[in-house]
């Protein structure tokens, strides 16, 4: 019996020592996760998440105080990328992702006050003073900053329509397929 106790103790000590040495020897410097998350985010600092800009939101996501679904313009795609990066699983069915949205100007009530264009984080609204403004579709992130600024409520957020070109097949109802490799 003593022999067994002795040999197992010896084995445990040696293996523990080896593990400890390996941990020191092969130590990997953890990359700055905040910087990585920030790189994934839209970077428009629109503030819809409630944080002061994307860097703050990235920090909050990294330390877990904000969910990965915090960014509305990023939508499901960003949430998925963040979840994959952080190694967490999320239930995307609960994410209220109405799809991408864009702002449009109701041309009959726009008075050309230029207030909206000043707060647009991507300079997506064009128009001179006293002229009807317009939104550049490609540049608008749908952040909604302009909506509250408009004195005549001429700005509206509308979902970007799904077209035949952008339509994606739905995922089939889950069938269990074993992962073997």
């Amino acid at each position, binding site marked *: 019996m003593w022999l067994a106790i002795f040999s197992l103790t010896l084995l445990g000590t040696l293996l523990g020592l080896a593990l400890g040495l390996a941990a020191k020897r092969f130590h990997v410097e953890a990359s700055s996760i905040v910087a990585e998350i920030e790189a994934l985010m839209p970077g428009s600092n629109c503030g819809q998440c409630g944080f002061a800009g994307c860097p703050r939101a990235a920090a909050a996501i990294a330390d877990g105080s904000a969910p990965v679904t915090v960014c509305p313009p990023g939508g499901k795609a960003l949430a998925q990328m963040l979840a994959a990066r952080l190694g967490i699983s999320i239930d995307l069915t609960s994410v209220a992702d109405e799809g991408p949205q864009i702002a449009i100007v109701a041309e009959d009530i726009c008075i050309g006050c230029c207030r909206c264009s000043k707060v647009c984080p991507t300079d997506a609204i064009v128009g001179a003073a006293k002229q009807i403004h317009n939104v550049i579709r490609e540049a608008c992130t749908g952040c909604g900053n302009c909506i509250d600024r408009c004195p005549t409520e001429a700005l509206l957020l509308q979902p970007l329509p799904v077209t035949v070109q952008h339509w994606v097949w739905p995922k089939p109802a889950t069938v269990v*397929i074993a992962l073997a490799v």
Partner: protein
Amino acid sequence: MGIFEKIFRHHPPWGVHPDDHKLPAANAPLRSLPLPALLYVPMQQHVGSPARPVVLVGQHVLKGQLIAEAQGNVSAPVHAPTSGRISAIGEVTAPHPSGLAQLAITIAADGADTWCERLPVDDPFALAPEEIARRTAAAGVVGLGGATFPAAVKFNLGRRLKVNTLIVNGGECEPYLSSDDRIMRDRAAEVVDGLRIVMYAIGAREALVGIEDNKPQAIAAMRVAAAAFGNVQVRPVPARYPMGSDKQLIQTLTGKEVPADARAAEVGVLVHNVSTCAAVHRALRRGEPLVERIVTLNGGALTRPGNLLAPIGTPVVDLLRFAGVSGRPARLVLGGPMMGIVLPHARVPIVKGASGILAFDAAEAHVAEAGPCIRCGSCTRACPMGLLPLEMASRIGADDLAGAAGFGLSDCIGCGCCAYVCPSHIPLVQYFSYAKGELSARERSKLRNDATRRLAEERVARLEREAREKAAAAARRKAERDAAKAAAGAAARPLPVRIVKPASEAAT
């Protein structure tokens, strides 16, 4: 076929052999559809940018008249399929599984079917190859095998890459369909003349016509038509799905394998469908743009299946009525059963790539319930691309799209062999379509995010620059004022001056 032939008959190590269901539709003589009252001509009937309408509502157009022009490098124009009045330009349900709408021009036929002025060419071989490509493009000819890639774009590609061999695809491996079979039987001379024009346009030295050996009449007709031309060979190929896929047909006929991410033209081969060749013949020899095509009407719910010559834009419901529907079809499919798409309803127009409309009865439309994968490996053996469908699907099921891509998802041609053989009826193709769509949507959203970031950075830079410029301007004004003050002070006792700041400065 004898039992020994059945056992020892050589077939490629890939693919499946579904029941072909081609008879009796393939043997029924070609019929012409009576002119429908309304035609809905979609603007996107091809790969690439949609065409742009060049007619106005209320305008009268003649058959063959240009009604929408091509936009961009990869695009195709659209022509009026009959004479009549433009009654609307608006959205109609697209022949697409989503059932979403797309822009179409609606023509109310006047019944006269009057052609516009046509410019036939007596000797296309006297034209420059570039001119043939130009005329083909202007006639709106696209790949009629189903891919609908603008034909002239491929001509130019073939000429640039010095293609040696033209492969004419008469495979038609999809069950139920026989429109290519019919065109080879009835219009073999047109097909052969068209393919010779294509050969000339791309500078190919030989043409190989690949026809599946389950179409003996088509093979015979094409052999007769091609007999006079030594550089056109008709080559029967084993009937094996998906023989009509470019890559598989090229491999079977030439032994060449198209490298991944490369085009067939880069290995000196170009593939055109037989119906496309016939359309090229009509575009050149008769000056007729692509305004009609042969559509196979087939399926258990039809009483008179067969092939119909129908104008582009004909609503499916008109075709079904002509072919006699018994009861209510359980499913409508555009294209073949292996790769075709489900139509949401029958009020969808046919497009240039519509090789067939299938009206399935309840038995044909039965969808078996999916069960768990038993890892039998049938899909692996069936896959013509050498992929592992079960491994890809298991990763997609677990939302590991990157993992699926690592197994070659981008090489999947979506032929459906895997889902066809799956004993558990797992909708493998839908897994792959979903994953491909999702990956490209993510790619788009990433590009969009990058663009947003760039715009935001530019805005920050602009604001900084403006602030800097304002500060510089203010400093300059201050210096000027101080200089003026000093000068005035030297001249006389300074008067009290009220300095008005610019509004923008006050705001900051």
